[in-house]
Structures are given as structure tokens and as C-alpha cells.
């Protein structure tokens, strides 16, 4: 996964709550067995509306997505995150995130920043203005800045996730280093649990 340190970009404002992953990546595109190339299908149905924010040329290079609460709800499909990644999104800001989506972002290397509803509303109105809103995000300092608009926001993030995102670390490799603990657990694990070995 790509590492994240500082991101400076215009903000793509998606002023909707409860945006589910069926909208981000409709099911007809989940039949692909590839890991890349999901960008063109992202928000496929909503993009048919010429007024949909993703069709606005101002936001073509946006790396920061600003949304409302419960972003990424519903299906566990990581394809939704791969789609966002493929259209260039590096950071999503929202008042809350669905758990599986949030976790998937952390594995792919997209930073989810949770901010209070009122702050999101203020940023949203600036981002939806004619000129849009440019933000600088610094993961090391955990800050969101725009000097022209006098914006200085501190955000919180789990330290371990921060470490992984900053260094683009493969979590599987990290877990494999705990081989001894896994082996020890397996040896003492109860024998009552089922095995699929007998299934033919």
C-alpha cells in the first residue's frame, strides 16, 4: 500500500449521509477478479446525473473527499475503497464511518478522518462554494489547514494505524512475525471446534 504523509488538494464535497457501498461500487462491477481499474465504475449510477459533484471539472483532481455521517455503510465490498483509490482519493473526512469501510480504508491506505458534525458542516459549505475549498492535511502533525480561510483543525487517529499509513506497512507481514504466538495458541486451542477437513 502507498504511504501517506501530507496531502494538499481541493475538497470533493459529497453532502449526503448514509452513503452505502452499493452506491460507491454497484454490484455489477464486483464480478471482476482484478484488483485495479475500478475508478470508472465509482458512483456509476449517481454519475449519470450531470449535476453530480464528481462530474464538476473543478473536482477532477480532488484527493480529499468530504461526506456526511455513516459513510461507507452496508456491504463489506473492498471494491468500493479500490474505486475511490483509483479516482485518486487519499483522504475521506466525515462525522462517522461504517466500521468495515473504515477498516478496509486502513488496509488499502486511505486515511479516514472523523470530525464533529458542526465542523464538517462548516467545511461542507466552504467546499460547496463556487471557488471550492483547498485543504492541507498533515498526518504526522494530525492537522488540517487552510490559512486563507483561517482553518486549523486537529484530528485524532489511532497511533498504530497512523504508523502503518505513514510507512505503507503490510499488516500480514507484521502478523507473520508473531508466528510463535500463533503456534502456541494453536497448540492449546480447544479440540471441540470443528474442522472442515472431513468434508469431501
Amino acid at each position: 500500500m502507498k504511504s501517506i504523509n501530507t496531502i494538499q488538494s481541493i475538497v470533493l464535497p459529497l453532502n449526503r449521509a448514509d452513503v452505502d457501498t452499493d452506491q460507491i461500487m454497484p454490484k455489477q462491477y464486483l464480478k471482476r477478479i482484478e484488483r485495479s481499474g475500478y475508478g470508472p465504475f465509482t458512483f456509476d449510477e449517481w454519475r449519470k446525473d450531470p449535476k453530480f459533484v464528481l462530474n464538476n471539472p473543478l473536482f477532477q483532481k480532488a484527493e480529499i473527499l468530504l461526506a456526511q455521517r455513516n459513510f461507507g455503510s452496508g456491504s463489506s465490498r473492498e471494491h468500493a475503497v479500490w474505486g475511490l483509490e483509483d479516482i485518486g482519493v487519499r483522504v475521506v473526512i466525515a462525522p462517522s464511518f461504517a466500521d468495515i469501510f473504515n477498516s478496509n480504508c486502513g488496509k488499502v491506505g486511505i486515511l479516514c478522518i472523523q470530525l464533529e458534525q458542526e465542523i464538517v458542516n462548516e467545511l461542507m459549505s466552504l467546499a460547496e462554494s463556487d471557488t471550492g475549498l483547498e485543504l492541507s492535511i498533515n498526518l504526522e502533525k494530525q492537522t488540517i489547514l487552510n490559512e486563507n480561510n483561517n482553518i486549523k483543525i486537529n484530528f485524532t487517529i489511532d497511533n498504530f494505524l497512523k504508523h502503518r499509513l505513514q510507512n505503507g506497512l503490510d499488516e500480514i507481514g507484521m502478523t507473520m512475525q508473531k508466528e510463535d504466538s500463533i503456534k502456541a495458541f494453536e497448540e492449546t486451542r480447544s479440540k471441540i471446534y470443528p474442522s472442515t477437513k472431513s468434508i469431501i
Partner: protein
Amino acid sequence: MSTKKTLAQKIWDNHTVHKENGIPDLLFIDLHLIHEVTSPQAFESLRINNRKVRRPDLSIATIDHNVPTTDRTLPNPDPLSIKQIDALRENAKDFNIPLFDIFDPRQGIVHVISPEQGLTQPGMTIVCGDSHTSTHGAFGSLAFGIGTSEVEHVLATQTLPAPIPKMMQVHIKGRVNKGITGKDIVLAIINKIGVDGGIGHIIEFTGEAIRNLSMEGRMTICNMTIEAGARAGLIAPDKTTFDYVKNRPLAPKGEKWDEAIEYWETLYSDPDCEFDSYVELDGQEIEPFVTWGTNPAQSSPISGSIPDPSSIEDPAAKETAERALSYMDLEAGTKISKIELDKIFVGSCTNSRIEDLRAASEILKGNKVAKTIQAIVVPGSGLIKKQAEEEGLDKIFIEAGFEWREAGCSMCLGMNPDILKPGERCASTSNRNFEGRQGQGGRTHLVSPEMAAAAAIAGHFTDVRNI
């Protein structure tokens, strides 16, 4: 720290492989369920990184999401589906993972086949690249959906790093009235706490109404826990649970059974343990529920009407309600019972088990589906289909005018040819009424199997208790 634990904490602690300050706990996974849609990229990455599947003996695969439910001896019309199904076959073979292929009588929806085979047991940790993995919590196990990166993590290590969730108790006070199902209870819960009410939490469901439910009813409730945003949902195991598991092909046998029961009987939340939050519903107040919007919290009792979005105070909820009514082509104030339908779908990991089929067929017996309606019933597994046929349920459905199909996810998410056309309105026993979920432009109303059957006969929603 208190030594009194919730059920979920007990299971969590029993599965913690590694604990260290500042990093997520590493949990051992007892069972990994695999299907064709969310696994190909995980297997591909294993190959690229030259990694093995650590515990194929704790993994099982099935094909469910994109299989046709019509005659499977005919060629699959979709080349992309064929490719994805073939990929799973190849991956299962290469990595020694047992697979229920499409002509195996045990094939079916991943969350149906695992309990059916006795693989799902109390006290286990169970994951799958599918959000409805929460279903298995009905057995008092800790079960949650994961993304494809996590699927790869579990394949490679049989563990998963996970931040400790918060605990919520949802208590149903007293009994529910006759005719009220697990589906109505869970829709009432989601209506109360909202689609984001459970974020970051594991929900334990308690109360007499929950205890009185069969395993099928409990599975319906835990299945839809994800629709309230929760990571997982569970119900403490009891005699109903043990009776369901006993004698299934992979259930413990002989001495192991006695040992298992001894352990399973310790699986409950300690009296006076602490939950982070508590929600209570009065069982007597729960009516048959119908969703009217585009998320599962936008719902109403059958006696109610479509709400007026202008009466909603919260701006975000108001905006989503306005959008939902526009998408669903419904007007505020319309009685739920006046909503007319085009299609009926009985199926999905929420409501496709034998009890669901019995309940729907009981309503349909001696009746005909309205002329304006096309109705299909898709059993959750090949074995359920067979059992239903032995009980003669297929004949009741067919005589009423339903199509009797092969097992799979089908119209719940429309990855196979079973989809709604734009503008079609469907009463569905599935779990999501999102925009386009059952087909682009399709309109979905979530209900119980009984309510779906009643609507099939009437052509519009109607209170099943009056039939």
C-alpha cells in the same frame, strides 16, 4: 478492571493470540467462510507474495452470490460470472480448501450452509468477506464481515488484528404478539437506533421475546445487525441452540459433545457486567414492519403511513428521507397498505431457511398470487430445497403462482440474472433496500416472509395477521 464480562468479551478473550498496548488485539479465527466475489484478489495476492493458506482445515468455500437460480444444466449466460466461479474453483483446489460447488446438494448461501452443516457453533470466532457474517452470532459466536485485505490476512495467518469494540445491549421487554417474526423485531430495532446506531459496537440481544425465537428467527435478527451499523450481533446460546447444533454433520460427537456443552453453558454475559450502552424496546408494541425508503431504518409498522420529511428535525435525516421518497416514487402520508407491488422475492441469507419457507407457504396455501405480481422463492441451500420438496412446500408455492428456484443469493443483490427492472417495486425478504440494490432503478421494500406472502396474494401490502 471489573472481572465481570459480557458474552462477547468472554469469546474475545478466549481467542486473543497476542495483546500489546498501543496495537490492536490479534484474534484467532476458528472458521473462515469464503465465496466467489470477495476472495479472488486475496488468493491472487497470496500467490504474488508466495504465501500459503495457513489453515485450510478451518476454511470452507461455496458459490452463492452470482450463480443463476434457474436450471443449472443450461450454460451460465454471464461470461464474467463464469470467470469468477472458475477462479474460486481453481483457488479452492490449489489451496486445498473444501468447496460446495453448484451441483453439490450442500451448495447454498454461505450464511445458511455453515449453520446447516454444524460448522457454526457457540463460542467461536467466524469471519467471511461478507457483511452479513453477523448471522452466526445467533449461536453465541463472535462473527463479523471483513474486506478482501482481511480475507487475505486470515488466509495467510488464521488471525485478524481487531480494535476492541464497545458493547451494546438491546433488550426486548416482554413477549411479542402472535404473528410477529424475527424480521419485524430487527426492523423495529433498526428503526429505533438508526442505520448508524451500532457503529463501533457489538450488540447482544436479550429478553424473553428473543429467547422464544427459533434459531432461524435468531439468525434473521443477528443477520441484520450490520444494518444498524454494528460490527457484530449475538445471542447467548441455550437449549434451543444446542438442539439445533446436535447431530449436524460437523457438530461435536460423543465425549466431545459433552465437553462442548460444558463450555457452551458458560457462554453468557455475567450478571452486573457493564455494557457501554443499553436500548430497550417493548415487545408488545412491535407490529409487522415494512420499509418505505432506501435504508433499512426508513420503515413503518403496517398500520402506519409514509412520514412527511418536513416533520424530520435532523437535517441529514430529512435530506435522506426526501431523496428516498423521490427514488421510491412515494408520497408522504400514503398508507403503507396502499402501496402496490410488481414483484415478490422470498429468499436471501436473512429469510431463506426452512422455517421461512414453511411460514410463507402457510399463508399461500389455497391462495393465488395476484395477477399483477411476479413472485419467486429461492431456498437458501440445496438441502433446504430438498427438505421443502419432501414437505411438499414447493407444490404450495408453485400452485400459488411462485417460481421455485435453485439456491443462491439471487435477487437480494442481483449479481445474477434475478433483478428488478427500472421502476419495478418489490416486497423482499432480504436485508437491504438501497438504491439499485435489486437492479438499477428497482424499488425494494423489506418485510418478513409472512408479509411477503400476504402481499403476493393481495397485490399490495396488508397485515398478515388479518389473513
